[in-house]
């Protein structure tokens, strides 16, 4: 028998439904998943606010309990003072005529015979009637909306806050569009990302490439706040996950990666340099100079050749006049008709890139192709930046690699569309500190914004992990399918996470009141309706539930018991 918590007293689709609470207000929390039963339909909604009300404000103003006998005061308050819930209706589901009636039987038969569409949750288009009864969602309701735990591809991300019913994320849907994990620093973003990654790698329907700027995801790590050991993905999926270290001989968390990534000079393209404009403080003359370099040396050689040029070298002419020496930047600039100061300025500023130890003339192996092959073969890559943690490293490497990946996947998709063979494996690129690559100035230039906007068709999507969603370009944010957000304090960040979603104002307060490290809000296209949940803990129990109990050594007691002693 369902326990009802109240009944509908008013409201609408625009301004939410008002529900009169008939149980003590402390039994219901903001963000609770409420079910409204109204005739043949069932409505699902989210409690967005609790309001104290009185039939007349004077009943609330006066402390009548002080001058009335207790029973009378209780009676008076029970009828004149009340709590209203504001419920944001999200979905509705046809449940048919009354259970057990003849009409129900007919209705059921019609569905079985295919005369009627099978009921499924629909976006809410109407409202329940007055006095429709309201109850908290039970496990069956949650499973109806968010999917059953047992179904393959459904990953339990957390539990409802009041009754701890498991809430699933549909991983197939999750990887179909770009998504985001947000939360202020210390809100448990990294753990949440680990959870999602573990779920995706275990389900293994899409390859994952993680740009691991802070070396957190591959090997075992130590939690920054508790000091406890955090299991890395490589440890739990040794055959599926490959850790790639940036630069020859890189060590990640004291361990040797599976292979190292070195970048050949010929791989660096003018676009890679242009997107470093802000980082390197490049002038507006840069494109012209780069263009001249390409014209002169070609796309493969320009970087190597420009690197070799010297600045300030001069020779004396026969007339005793100092002129730029051959092999100097100025000499080259003169020969190409480029402003000397502009060329020298660019050369000076590119020195940071010239000196990067992992940018080499001839890498020991073509590690970029190796990464792409591994991803195509269904493996997952964690690219750890090791000691190269500067923004420059991150921007250059992630963009360069992604550009190559994009080319490969585009080609494969086009081939597949033409021949119908060899469907590309979906790929999810995990981008930490995404605002560095997807801010307003950079978004137009980086490959990532193209992926966020268009690459869904080419089987590549992004998983953005960021603490400042407001810094990410709106056009990218609005394309994000699933958004998982931990606590956010900044008003602009909250607005950014909610951009493009219905019921924004109602969800705003909820984001600001999430329990850091424990609760997250699920939002967006990839989830049937917004819902705050208590996120799963990333611990040994999680791994046991995900992978099953390890076949490790059994205790003496266990063996004796099995033997019958």
């Amino acid at each position, binding site marked *: 028998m369902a326990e009802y918590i109240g009944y509908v007293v008013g409201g609408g689709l625009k301004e939410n439904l008002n529900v009169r609470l008939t149980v003590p207000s402390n039994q219901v929390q903001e963000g609770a998943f409420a079910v409204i039963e109204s005739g043949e339909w069932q409505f699902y909604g989210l409690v967005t606010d609790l309001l104290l009300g009185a*039939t*007349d404000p*004077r*009943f609330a103003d006066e402390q*009548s309990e002080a*001058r*009335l*006998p207790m*029973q*009378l005061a209780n*009676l*008076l308050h*029970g*009828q*004149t003072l009340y709590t209203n819930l504001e419920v944001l209706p999200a979905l509705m589901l046809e449940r048919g005529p009354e259970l057990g009636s003849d009409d129900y039987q007919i209705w059921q038969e019609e569905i079985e015979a295919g005369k009627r569409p099978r009921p499924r949750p629909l976006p809410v288009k109407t409202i329940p009637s007055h006095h429709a009864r309201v109850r908290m969602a039970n496990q069956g309701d949650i499973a109806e909306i968010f999917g059953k735990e047992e179904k393959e591809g459904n990953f339990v991300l957390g539990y409802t806050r009041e009754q701890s019913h498991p809430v699933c994320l549909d991983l197939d849907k999750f990887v179909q569009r770009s998504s985001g994990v947000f939360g202020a620093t210390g809100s448990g973003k990294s753990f949440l990302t680990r959870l999602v990654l573990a779920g995706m790698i275990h389900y293994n329907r899409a390859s994952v490439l993680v740009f691991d700027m802070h070396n957190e995801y591959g090997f075992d790590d130590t939690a920054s706040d508790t000091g406890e050991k955090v299991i890395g993905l490589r440890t739990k999926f040794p055959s599926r996950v490959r850790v790639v270290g940036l630069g020859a001989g890189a060590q990640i968390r004291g361990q040797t990666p599976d292979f190292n990534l070195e970048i050949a000079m010929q791989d660096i393209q003018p676009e890679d340099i242009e997107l470093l404009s802000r980082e390197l403080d490049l002038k507006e003359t840069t494109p012209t100079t780069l263009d001249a370099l390409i014209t002169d040396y070609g796309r493969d050689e320009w970087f190597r050749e420009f690197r070799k040029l010297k600045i300030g070298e001069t020779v004396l002419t026969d007339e005793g006049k100092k002129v730029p020496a051959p092999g100097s930047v100025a000499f080259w600039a003169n020969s190409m008709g480029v402003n000397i100061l502009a060329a020298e300025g660019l050369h000076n500023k590119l020195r940071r890139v010239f000196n990067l130890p992992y940018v080499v003339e001839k890498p020991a192996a073509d590690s970029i192709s190796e990464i792409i092959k591994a991803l195509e073969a269904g493996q997952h890559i964690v690219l750890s930046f090791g000691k190269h943690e500067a923004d420059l490293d991150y921007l250059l490497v992630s963009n360069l690699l992604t550009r190559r990946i994009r080319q490969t996947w585009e080609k494969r998709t086009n081939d597949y569309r033409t021949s119908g063979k060899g469907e590309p494996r979906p790929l999810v690129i995990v981008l930490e500190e995404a605002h560095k690559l997807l801010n307003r100035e950079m978004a137009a230039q980086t490959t990532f914004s193209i992926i966020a906007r268009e690459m869904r068709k080419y089987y590549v999507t992004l998983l953005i992990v960021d603490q400042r969603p407001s810094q990410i370009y709106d056009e990218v944010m609005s394309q994000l399918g699933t958004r998982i957000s931990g606590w956010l304090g900044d008003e602009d960040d909250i607005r950014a996470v909610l951009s493009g979603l219905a019921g924004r104002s109602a969800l705003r307060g909820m984001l600001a009141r999430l329990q850091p490290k424990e609760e997250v809000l699920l939002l967006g296209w990839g989830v049937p309706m917004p819902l705050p949940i208590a996120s799963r803990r990333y611990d040994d129990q999680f791994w046991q539930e995900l992978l099953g109990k390890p076949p490790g050594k059994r205790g003496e007691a266990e063996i004796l018991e099995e033997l019958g002693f």
Partner: protein
Amino acid sequence: MTIIEVGRLLRAGTTGFVVGCRVSQIESPSFGALVRVPLNAGYQIYGLVHDIHIDDDGLVRQLVTTEGIDQAIIADNRVNRNVPIEMSVLSLGFQQDGKIHYLLPPRPALSLDAIYLCSDQEVRDFTAAGRFGYFRHILRSADLPVGELLAAHINQVQAVQAAAGNHNWALEATQELIILLRDDYVTLMNVISTLADAVPETWEGVR
């Protein structure tokens, strides 16, 4: 079961009637008491005593200014008074063919019809016949001391109901009153304060 007659009808309307009684009869009905007027077979009107009124006459006016009145004269004036004691009764409902209705009676009682105090059983039957629908007749009467009248009525009925094991009658009745009056702060607080003054009689034994 003793049947107590409280008087006979002086004048009547649909919403209420006035009963005239002798001084010897004044001991039995009280303010807030439930009375009934049996008419023809199976039809009787129920009402609530809301005013008891003793009018003067010429003789009384002379006597009150006289010094040292003899006790015999006082007694004679009371017993053999020219003007009866008047009790105003509010119609609350009627009974027809054994069924109690909380509606105004279809026709009033006639002059000199006898009025009786309801027995405990009749009080229980009338007050438990529906969901306090007769309260609306009381609440509608703006010129009556509604709070006092309800407190007196609830007090009396609770005693009778509790004796029959229904200890929560007053609680339910009060709840109904709060629902009916929750949009009328002034009247509700007036009624509630009066009920509070009825403590402990009303609420004793309420569970």
